[in-house]
């Protein structure tokens, strides 16, 4: 289905060139092409199966998808700068994965629930997260950034793949409630090697619960290339669990949207789980503490830069005559404003106080905790001014 070579990224066809026998073909499969609706050069290609799922996307909505992706990229760049300036301890960049996150995030309903990894800050933006809350944890000021129920998105999971279990569990709850909402879990290619993800998929298939496994294959699990982790396409792993899967160009916002809508529709109708492999690329480091030039070929980066998710929508808008100076200015202003708001929110965030550690342990009163808090309060008091005790504890 791909006409531009997006599917020929090496990692997808590990058996290419190797002597092929019938038995091997069985193991490796024939390799699926990617669902693609916008080519890297910005051409809208028709697809009989998936076009209907995005036919409601008007020019105006296409512009707003462009805006959201641009804003998300700006959030990412600004946060990376904040880390370099010592304002954040760490940041996991999502550069290059904007379409996968915005395309899927914008397909969700408010009553759906997201369980993501730490890299889905673009999804969080689409869920309407407060910009300061995005950086709260990364500044080390809180153990979680936001109230999950305020935007129906759990706080990002740091443990690789653990969130898939939470999503399956939540989806079992939806099923028990008889609701038609869905749980969506985001994870990377590396997570598919984790036991948690396998378990989550086993339970999801067994109970046919309304959960969408959204795997952003960004090709690198820190320094481990995806081809080392899987000798078949990641989407084909789902078949082993009896879960239908889709494989889309993760840098194509419309294709991602179509695939997510297909999966959500199946979930809402009681059709059970779906696995989506969004084939994208992590253009930046794993986190700001990583140096990808030590393990990654610069040419690979160049190849993927040519498939940039934002520039292809920009090119499409240009073809349609929609890329006006006014639109560009509007998008830039919005990105600037968002970056400014996040920076201000980050740098003016109040420092946490020692007793804050007791705040979010139990939602109901707990005598043990009360006792500990009492002891700790008196202990702090023994230092005189509690403010001074902060530095004492913090510096240890």
């Amino acid at each position, binding site marked *: 289905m791909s006409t531009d070579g997006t599917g020929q990224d090496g990692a997808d066809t590990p058996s290419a060139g190797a002597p092929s026998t019938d038995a091997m073909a069985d193991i490796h499969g024939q390799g699926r092409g990617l669902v693609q609706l916008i080519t890297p050069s910005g051409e809208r290609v028709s697809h009989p199966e998936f076009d209907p799922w995005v036919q409601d996307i008007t020019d105006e909505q296409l512009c707003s998808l462009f805006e959201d992706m641009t804003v998300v990229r700006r959030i990412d760049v600004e946060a990376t700068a904040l880390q370099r300036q010592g*304002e954040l301890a760490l940041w996991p960049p999502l550069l290059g994965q904007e379409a996968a996150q915005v395309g899927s995030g914008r397909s969700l309903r408010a009553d759906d629930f997201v369980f993501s990894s730490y890299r889905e800050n673009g999804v969080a933006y689409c869920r309407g997260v407060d910009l300061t809350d995005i950086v709260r944890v990364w500044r080390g000021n809180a153990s979680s950034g936001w109230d999950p129920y305020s935007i129906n998105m759990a706080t990002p999971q740091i443990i690789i793949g653990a969130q898939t279990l939470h999503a399956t569990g939540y989806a079992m709850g939806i099923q028990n409630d008889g609701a038609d909402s869905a749980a969506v879990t985001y994870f990377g290619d590396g997570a598919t090697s984790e036991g948690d993800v396998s378990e989550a998929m086993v339970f999801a298939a067994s109970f046919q619960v309304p959960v969408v496994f959204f795997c952003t294959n960004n090709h690198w699990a820190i320094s481990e290339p995806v081809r080392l982790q899987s000798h078949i396409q990641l989407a084909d792993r789902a078949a082993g669990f009896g879960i239908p899967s889709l494989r889309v160009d993760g840098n194509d916002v419309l294709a991602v949207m179509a695939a997510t809508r297909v999966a959500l529709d199946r979930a809402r109708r009681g059709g059970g789980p779906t696995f989506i492999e969004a084939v994208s690329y992590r253009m930046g480091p794993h986190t700001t503490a*990583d140096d990808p030039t030590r393990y*990654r070929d610069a040419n690979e980066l160049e190849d993927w830069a040519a498939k940039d998710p934002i520039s292809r929508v920009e090119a499409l808008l240009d073809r349609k005559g929609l890329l006006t100076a006014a639109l560009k200015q509007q998008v830039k202003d919005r990105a600037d404003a968002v970056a400014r708001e996040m920076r201000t929110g980050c740098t003016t965030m109040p420092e946490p106080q020692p007793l804050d550690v007791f705040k979010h342990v139990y939602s109901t009163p707990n005598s043990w905790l009360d006792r500990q808090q009492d002891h700790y309060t008196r202990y702090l008091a023994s230092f005189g001014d509690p403010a001074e005790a902060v530095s*004492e504890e913090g510096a240890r």
Partner: protein
Amino acid sequence: MIKEFRLPDLGEGLTESEILSWKVGVGDTVSLNQVIAEVETAKAVVELPSPFAGVIRELHEQPGTIVEVGKPIVSFEVSDDAGTPSPGPGTAASSPAAPAAPAGPAAGQEGEPAKRQPNLVGYGAVVESSARPARRPRNRLPVVESVQVIAPVVESVETRPVETKAPVVASVEAQPVEAQSAGTRPRSTPPVRKFAKDSGVDLALVAATGPQGLITREDVQHFLDGRSAGAAPAREAGAAVALQVRQGERETRTPIKGVRKFTAAAMVQSAFTAPHVTEFLTVDVTPAMDLLAKLKGSREFGGHKLTPLTLAAKAVLIALRRNPALNARWDEANQEIVTFNYVNLGIAAATPRGLTVPNIKDADSLSLLQLADALAELTEAARAGKTTPADLSGGTISITNIGVFGIDAGTPILNPGEAAILALGAVRNMPWEYQGQVALRQVLTLSLSFDHRLVDGEQGSRFLADVGAILGEPGMALTMV
């Protein structure tokens, strides 16, 4: 107002970073997030975006300096309503909560650390009042006050570890601890210990100026400065040369680090572990140069980069097949000789950051055309500084092309772990014996060093003769493959 930017922890738990270069100068106007410097941490080379919009007033550290996390590196003049509204971790020094942080000996009051200590995710909490409770002394090593009064700490509520030998004295004026008592490990931090070790300094000899006898990087540096200043005159005097001892501009002192340090260590290890033998062979390579010209004009090779190095590399690969002893490694630990059944061909490359020897993996399986392309790719990557660590490791034999510098011959030092290295001299027009007469021929000299533990004179000589035979008459390759 002036705002300082302190070096943040750019990775997770880093204590120092090296300023590679400044992208701005004093007086430059910079915008928020404009790249102002390139910094190398233990983990990565990263660009530093400016935290303020304003004018650069001062660059506190020079390129090439290793800076501790938390030290000011640049000052900005910022208009009062610009910049970040409130100081964050990176600008905590301007916080009113922080006292004017005293540096040096005076900072030792009550054992309070004088500055924020790097920890896992930042550089710790703000240093606040020095009035911390005396009952919780952080330091468990004895601090000897100048007056030598030793008294137990009365208010101690903590169970003290049994190995604590002497009670802590609240030092009002922490003097540099001149010498640690025998058996006591001098107090310092891991990065400083490493610095001292790398510099060959015994910490026990270093006077500490940090809080509670902590030896700082400056102390070690000071000791080093003192040692070199003290040692130099003695040597000069011995030579009886009437030269000024202080001659700041007459020499440049460059810290040994980075690629230079690595190269030095590798060369010393190689030169003093593997007994080197070097042999020379001068060859009339006119036929090879003719072949090169012919290939360049051919359809298959046209447009590809072909040089004498290409043919020499191929000749080495062919000759290795007949002389596998040169494609081997001495495994001291296992008392085994490892003979490689593949060739990862290293090519010494002068790069902007120093000498590197990237290698072409499985070069023996490449055709001449593939080899030519691999060589071109490798040199291009090396020049651009894009050589990956994988390219640098796992070499089995190397070639160094000193001919490009117009040099004829030399004694190359083995790339550590390899059994042989071939130096390729310059191709020169020389009067040479040709068909019984003297003619002007194209001649080059091959210099081969090999590890005599692994390779005997016979094997080394045969290998070199084979390479020479191919370069002297490429058709000879037909007799070898």
